[in-house]
């Protein structure tokens, strides 16, 4: 139990910071051509990905041929923290780099790795993740998009929804049902589908704030012909891969979430004295108290993250992932909520949102109230807060499962 890391980690940190200072894109460069969707990689972002790859800083935990340097988990943690602190994004295509590329590397053929995964790692392509469907939001087992084998192709029909970045992505990591006759969680397979294949229609879904900058999409597949060699892994093994693909850099997904909380909190702490200056002392005390409560949450989030990480680094299991997802997304929400309420009627005034490029596009943006509304993306997607609570209750506390339909 200690506050600081070993020398080996600190020297790793120093090397990274030196390299970043020399090679990072400037804030001006990023702001001039910001990413506007998680599938959108501006020219500077593509170059930056390649630069990181070549220097072994893209996925430090991987070997050099995959853009890494065989870093230890602790070094990777420090890497993620310092990148976030430097306000430079690793990628705008978070799902491509975080889930799709690793999954292809784990389960794909050499050709798929070369053509799709390496394209992501080289900054040449972006990917979207085709999981959710209208009737299967958090419930992958209910998905209906069908892929029927027809000679050396699959023919895909169906509809995806909430597909982040599909309006810009080059290809889709598509979950579809290849066998309708087996139990629900079986018969699901994964295809790599080029987004320019005929029959694909992408309909952006404007959101309740910033409707001019949609990131979510509906994606319609109408007799889309996908070469059979784009099947990832075994036929019908999609369910197992879905669970595997979410495990990449597991125990560290909280780092950017916590960083987002801390940046938002820092802004709130910075603004608050001026915001509350005209309030009578009693109301000021109440406003400050609400701010302090989220400040405690923010520190707790970081401490819980480190603790989950320490367990993982010692080879233990980390059931805290559900807890970190739940807690960090709700704390981010509360920071925005408290900030908006402390602003009072000023919070109702909106304006043009300036995407500043350094902030991940899926982070809440704009006014505090807009950030608050947008923060629900994080408490709803990738397993709602309700599902996380059930996971904690069942897997961490060992409470009996509810009877579930088979």
């Amino acid at each position, binding site marked *: 139990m200690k506050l600081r890391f070993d020398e080996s980690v600190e020297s790793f940190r120093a090397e990274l910071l030196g390299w970043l200072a020399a090679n990072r894109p400037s804030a001006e460069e990023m702001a001039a051509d910001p990413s506007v969707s998680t599938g959108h990689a501006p020219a500077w972002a593509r170059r930056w990905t390649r630069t990181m790859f070549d220097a072994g800083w893209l996925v430090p935990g991987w070997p050099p041929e995959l853009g890494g340097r065989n870093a230890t988990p602790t070094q990777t943690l420090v890497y993620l923290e310092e990148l976030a602190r430097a306000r430079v994004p690793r990628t705008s295509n978070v799902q491509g780099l975080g889930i799709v590329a690793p999954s292809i590397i784990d389960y794909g053929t050499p050709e798929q790795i070369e053509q799709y995964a390496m394209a992501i790692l080289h900054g040449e392509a972006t990917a979207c993740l085709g999981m*959710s469907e209208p*009737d*299967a*939001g*958090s*419930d992958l087992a*209910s998905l209906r998009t069908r892929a029927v084998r027809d000679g050396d192709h699959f023919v895909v029909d169906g509809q995806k*929804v*909430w597909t982040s970045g599909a309006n810009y992505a080059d290809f889709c990591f598509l979950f579809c049902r290849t066998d309708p006759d087996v139990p629900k969680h079986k018969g699901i397979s994964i295809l790599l589908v080029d987004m320019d294949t005929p029959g694909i229609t992408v309909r952006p*879904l*404007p*959101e*309740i704030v910033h*409707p001019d900058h949609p990131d*979510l999409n509906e994606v319609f597949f109408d007799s889309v012909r996908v070469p059979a060699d784009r099947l990832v892994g075994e036929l019908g093994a999609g369910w197992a891969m879905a669970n595997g693909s979410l495990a990449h850099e597991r125990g560290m997904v909280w780092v950017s979430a916590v960083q987002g909380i801390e940046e938002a909190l820092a802004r709130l702490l910075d603004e608050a004295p001026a915001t509350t200056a005209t309030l*009578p002392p*009693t*109301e000021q005390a*109440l*406003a400050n108290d*609400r701010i302090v409560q989220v400040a405690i949450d923010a520190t707790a989030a970081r401490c819980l993250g480190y603790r989950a990480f320490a367990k993982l680094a010692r080879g233990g299991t980390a059931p805290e992932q559900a807890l970190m997802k739940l807690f960090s997304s709700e704390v981010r*929400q509360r920071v925005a*909520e408290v900030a908006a*309420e402390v602003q*009072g*009627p*000023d*919070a*109702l*005034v*909106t*304006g043009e949102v300036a995407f500043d490029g350094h902030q991940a596009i899926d982070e809440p943006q704009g006014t505090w*109230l*807009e950030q608050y*509304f947008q923060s*629900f*993306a994080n*408490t*709803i*997607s990738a397993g*709602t*807060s*309700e599902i996380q*609570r*059930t996971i904690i209750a069942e897997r961490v506390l060992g409470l009996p499962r509810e009877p*579930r*339909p088979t």
Partner: protein
Amino acid sequence: MDLELDTDQQELRDHARSFLADSCPPSLVRDLFEGRVIEGRVVEGRVVEGRGPADSGGLWSAMVELGWPALAAEVDHGGLGQGFVAEAVLASELGRVVAPGPYLATVTQFAPVLVAAGAAELLGRVSAGDLTGALALGAADASARADGDGWTLDGVKTHVLDGASAEEIAVVARLVGSRGHEGVGAFLVPRAAVAVEPLTVIDPTMPLATLRLDGVEVDGARVLLDPRDPASFDALEHVRRHATVAMALSGVATCRAIVEATVSYAKQRHQFGRPIGSFQAIKHRLADLYLAVERADALAWYAAVCLAEDDARLPVAAAMAKAALGDCQRLATRDGLQLHGGIGFTWEHDLHFLLKRATTTAFLLGGAEHHRAELARHLGLVA
């Protein structure tokens, strides 16, 4: 104490609800949210003549035709004398459908100042639908200087509801050099006399504006509440409470609509082979949400009756109602959006109109913390 509507009031509610279902459908609200000009357009097959920029879809014209601005007003003021409960019913029904238009600002904020001033002629015009108004509260934000027979006003008024569209503004201002309960008055200022800065807001059905008064000269006849009269302060406190209770009623109705939408969605939406509303955790959250709405609703109507009967409990009741709206809006917004899942997060779904309106009503005229701080004084916890 009887907090249920009587038969006449129920009829008014049912009639208003059915009228608004036809005349203020979500498509009208969407037009406003999407910035389409909708002055004087075809509603339900007939052309409705627009009555100015605030007459969205001719809704205000239709409301005037129904006599709504006159309903609660006293007969002496050209009204129908049905009292505040009738006004409360309308404010509530308008909140339920996120209705745009001058009702809230004109009838529940502006008219009460006229009542306090005994301005029968102006009230007659309001009742007839010939005059819209706004109320610029906050004595600290503007100063008044006596200037011969008239007055000169200076200052900046923020977050004035309908400030950019109302014809007349009731401006609250403070005598230069005065403090506390002394020296506070209200003046009738034509909108044209002030520099108006409309604000882009999260809910365009509740348009706000900043008003700059830069040496505005007000004729002596336009003094509504003389700042030299010590009774003006209490009169304005009463006006503020009137506006606050109406806002609470309207906001709670919006929250109730969120809950109804969410309950309805929870019955339809299936996940894991069951309607999500059959999951116990969802049930209990919706029960708590329902309770929060009932709590705020009961307090809002209690405050409404206190206002209608001019009861001494109004100051406490009004502050409680608005504080409870804050609690209820916080929960309704959070749970309403969360339990709708992705669908409620899209612009295409109508839920966000309700969420943004509820938030607006909760944040205007003092949030929960403001009113709780006021209650600490009313309840004798602080001097």
